[in-house]
């Protein structure tokens, strides 16, 4: 369907409820609707039209329209269109209708909005705190414009209640936030009877830094560097999504060569990340040899990054309007040689690990994420593809370069650790092939356009397929080339609840393995 057809269909069914329609850019359609009709409309879009809820956020627009606003972004992944519903909320009211009962993926977004803005989702099945722990005082909402970024309120002392499983022989295992390995902090509360896990509740947001607030009022240039630091191993893709949003607002088409260079880096990041995950999976089943093979290849991938841009984490590559330097020119031959070396080593290693029945026995049928749950929660990236959901931003919202390069989305259905591993294995080959193809067909030419001024109070989405999956950033500009609101939705936000479902019924000692096969970012979730 085109944006016009979508609009027509909605007007036919809900004509009276739609206050205003704005078509922004090629693929964003904004509909402002009556707040009390949100549940019906979102239910219709999600269930009848089949568009998943991909992002949802609030915005303090009291200085602009005298109201708070909540945005609901749904994606038509077949024709690459974002359909965004918007409702306004009067400051005297501060409540909105929860849609979580109808659209399950909304549950965590609504809790987030409640914590950060103090807007109450009425009818939410379990609106407990999400972002803030017991130390944050009630009635303090940092994302309202009136809140001073630097204000650090006194520590409150409230207890956090976890969901309880009560029965004879059921006990709880608390783990974290400081874990045994070198990983990020989070608290896991397992309810178990014997070995199998009955329920897992993940308390996250230990690394919440207030990134969205930090960006407000800051220059567009500075926020690019903040975007690079949302999640270390996804530095490039986050900066990429941010740049896309700003470039869309500025009406700028970046030079083709710059687009190609970005694709090379995006795929390099995916390769590095997946190699790390594969190594991690092997480590967690104590398969030392294979782990060290993958770590070695990852080391080589870091070496490529170092050679191209001097930064192992691909920071300082993107720039608004293109890339900072022509990082690829003159290095093609060495790049191709190194990629081919990784590819052949990878092939040989894959043969070895797949022939190891002890290893396959550990990963097969472990940590199954069902297709239904994956769809309900809008799981994204490799975990979703492993469960049979064939979504990939590079296919549904492709840029010029991905449209030209050929690649296929891996097809798996079992949703277990093995499938996630296989998706990642296939995507490693794919990443290498895409890089080789991009180097091959890269046109010569400019690598950036300059952006001088950007109009205030304009907004747009930037989307990328991060190594972990669909990554969506929404930016609204402010006066004098600053940010008014920056909503970051990384793939980890969607996949954390999916992980909690996937571990059910599995043994506690398999948790690290299942966790590693998802490899979610805490920083990307907590912001």
């Amino acid at each position, binding site marked *: 369907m085109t944006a016009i057809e979508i609009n027509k269909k909605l007007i036919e069914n809900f004509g009276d409820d739609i206050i205003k329609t704005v078509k922004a850019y090629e693929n964003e359609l904004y509909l402002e609707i009556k707040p009390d009709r949100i549940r019906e409309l979102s239910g219709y879009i999600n269930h009848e039209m089949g568009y998943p809820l991909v992002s949802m956020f609030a915005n303090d627009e009291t200085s602009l329209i005298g109201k708070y606003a909540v945005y609901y972004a749904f994606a038509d992944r077949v024709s690459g269109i974002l359909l965004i519903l918007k409702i306004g909320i009067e400051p005297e009211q501060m409540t909105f209708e929860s849609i979580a009962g109808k659209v399950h993926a909304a549950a965590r977004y609504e809790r987030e909005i409640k914590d950060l803005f103090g807007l109450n989702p009425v009818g939410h099945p379990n609106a407990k705190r999400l972002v803030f722990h017991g130390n944050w005082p009630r009635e303090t909402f940092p994302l309202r414009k009136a809140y001073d970024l630097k204000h650090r309120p006194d520590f409150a002392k409230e207890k956090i209640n976890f969901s309880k499983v009560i029965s004879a022989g059921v006990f709880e295992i608390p783990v974290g936030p400081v874990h045994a390995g070198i990983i*990020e902090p989070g608290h896991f509360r397992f309810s178990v009877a014997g070995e199998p896990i009955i329920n897992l509740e993940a308390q996250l947001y230990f690394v919440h830094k207030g990134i969205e607030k930090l960006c407000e009022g800051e220059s567009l240039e500075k926020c690019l560097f903040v975007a690079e630091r949302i999640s270390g191993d996804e530095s490039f893709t986050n900066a990429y999504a941010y740049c896309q949003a700003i470039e869309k607002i500025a009406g700028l088409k970046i030079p083709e060569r710059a687009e190609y260079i970005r694709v090379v880096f995006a795929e390099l990041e995916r390769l590095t990340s997946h190699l790390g995950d594969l190594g991690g999976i092997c480590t967690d089943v104590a398969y030392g040899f294979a782990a060290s093979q993958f770590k070695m290849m990852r080391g080589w991938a870091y070496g490529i990054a170092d050679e191209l841009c001097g930064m192992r984490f691909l920071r300082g590559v993107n720039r608004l309007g293109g890339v900072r330097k022509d990082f690829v020119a003159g290095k093609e031959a060495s790049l191709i040689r190194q990629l081919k070396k990784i590819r052949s080593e990878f092939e040989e290693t894959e043969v070895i690990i797949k022939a190891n029945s002890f290893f396959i026995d550990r990963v097969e049928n472990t940590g199954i994420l069902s297709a239904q749950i994956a769809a309900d929660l809008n799981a994204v990236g490799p975990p979703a593809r492993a469960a049979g959901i064939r979504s990939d931003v590079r296919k549904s919202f492709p840029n010029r370069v991905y449209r030209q390069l050929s690649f296929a989305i891996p097809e798996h259905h079992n949703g277990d650790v093995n499938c996630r591993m296989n998706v990642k294995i296939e995507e490693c080959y794919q990443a290498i092939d895409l890089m080789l193809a991009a180097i091959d067909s890269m046109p010569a030419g400019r690598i950036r356009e300059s952006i001088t001024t950007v109009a205030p109070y304009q907004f747009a989405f930037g989307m990328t397929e991060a190594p972990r999956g669909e990554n969506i950033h929404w930016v609204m500009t402010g006066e004098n080339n600053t940010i008014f609101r920056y909503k970051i939705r990384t793939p980890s936000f969607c996949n954390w609840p999916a992980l909690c479902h996937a571990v059910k019924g599995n043994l506690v000692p398999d948790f690290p393995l299942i966790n590693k096969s998802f490899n979610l970012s805490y920083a990307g979730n907590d912001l």
Partner: protein
Amino acid sequence: MFNTIKKIIKYPNLTQNYPRKALLSLPKTGKTVIDMKKCTGCGECLGRCPSQAIVRDAQTKVLGINLDTCVFCTLCEEICPSGAIAMTNQFELAEEKRTALRSSTLVIAEDQEIVMPYEAICAELVKRIRKTFGRSLNIREVDAGSCNGCDYEINAMNNPFNDVERLGMHFVASPRHADMLLVTGTATRNMQLALIKTYNATPDPKLVVAVGACACSGGIFRDSYATSNGIDNIVPVDVYIPGCPPRPQAIIYGILKAIEKL
């Protein structure tokens, strides 16, 4: 099995001999320096530095860089109109005193200063560490609110290229087994209690090393409602390792500095 053995023979040893031998290829993004002969003091970099690491001395009006805050983004090198700023390949930057990394003086509000028995002040400490730890060091890593960049670099210390166990360094699962805490991140509000508990759970004598701009000063996330400006607001720090993130060898250098084996 045959294939596995073949691989093991193919790559017998990948480990770099750092710090005994200098790195073969040096990184391009090390310490940032301002060439005072070229600098006109125009202040372009001052306003655009994303982490406000560039400062002007109130009296002399000369520009300087606070390395504990620098995120090594290389923007200043790119935008300086007189080409006075350059990235060097110097990456061994760890210091025991945060002031040694700064060109402006450090202001810690008095109520934030920690009053607790701080054994690092004792001159005896060095002797005791040598005696207690011998030549091996057990490390517990604590992520106190990083972006995970620093943690991945700490992870990379265990990869075949760096293999820090050869230096007698070993990562342990519990702070109770640790001699040193390697802390990354800005000590976010939600991690402060966990950081203090971990610190207290680590037996004395212990060392604390702050890894990365965030842990040193709050880095790019300074002054937010949910962060603190450096972990030294929460726990005492023995060595600061700047970088965003510092590369594995820079972390090794910092740790070695902490135990004074260098």
